[in-house]
């Protein structure tokens, strides 16, 4: 990627919680960059091993 073409980076957010047994869990989320994101068709396929 050409560095001059870098768009604005969506901000990353993290929210940490404690699970019942004391372990930590961190939710990562990102500002929505673009409303027209579509679900790729191949994401729905079942994995085959």
């Amino acid at each position, binding site marked *: *990627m*050409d*560095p001059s073409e*870098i*768009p*604005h*980076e*969506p901000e*990353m957010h*993290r929210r940490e*919680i404690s*699970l019942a*047994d004391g*372990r*930590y*869990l*961190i*939710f*990562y*989320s*990102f500002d929505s*960059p*673009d409303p*027209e*994101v*579509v679900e*790729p068709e*191949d*994401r*729905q*396929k*079942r*994995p*085959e*091993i």
Partner: protein
Amino acid sequence: MSELRFNPLLGEWTATATARQDRTFLPPDDYCPLCPTTPGGFPTEIPEPDYDIVAFENKFPSLRSEPEVPSIDGSELYPVRPSQGVCEVVVYTPHHSSSLAREPVEQIHKLVRVWTDRFRELEALEFIEYVFIFENKGEAVGVTLHHPHGQIYAYPFVPPYLLKELSRARQHMEGTDRCLYCDVVAEEMQYRERIVAENESFIAVIPFFARYPYETHIYAKRHLQALTDLFAYGQRDLAEILKQVLAAFDRLFDFSFPYIMSIHQRPSDGANYDYYHFHIEFYPPMRSKTKLKYLAGSEAGAGMFINDTLPEDKAAELRSHIRPVTWLSHG
């Protein structure tokens, strides 16, 4: 029971972790512990109805930040120490039936940023000397949960495979005043026949010395040591080349391709590793559509790999499945 036992024959530590015998093994889809917890549904490891990417401490760790007292006393010959460290699970997506290869490049870009954050946080722990980010994908490499996820082991020492790489890189730097990996990149870029994919920041190759038929390495073109050295465009280029390589793997035989992904970065013990070079290694176990490459006598017993294929041929085959990446959003 969990402890680190020293192997004096090889100068390496082995972790015992007997609780891992009880870990969840290939549960039905309805009981996947990495899916979101839906209202009224099975309570999973992730207690919310939706998420983007999640990292959490492994329920069945081989290393713990507050480790158990070892179950056995060590000796001068057999040192024993608590298995201190951190084991995390990183869940790539809430979509159970997806895979990293099938995720949009935007999601892989997010994951690169999460990996970077986890590396930065874990390497700051005073008892951590190496942060190892990896993924086991597919039952052929021993996966116990199909939901797309990777793992992070933060070790209290630099593990042996990395020590060997570091030693070779240091020797090369001392002998030539050049980075070994930069030389490998230059040689592969000059020869070109083993290149699988390339962009401004990274090159993917089946290297000259590949041990597995489809062993693929992604090298940073710029001399850097860790994910935290990547600029924003480097993070995006890494996401792009990962998407290209992973999707090409799946196209090879038209099934979800198993692999071990191993991210190699500098240690986190505070020493100077300017001679080392960030890269990612993939070890796919397939040697054809229906045959697995097993680690047999020579590989497991003597440490010498025998590759039944030529890297140049396999690189051409994998390269033929590389497609351009389209960003659907600004990621």
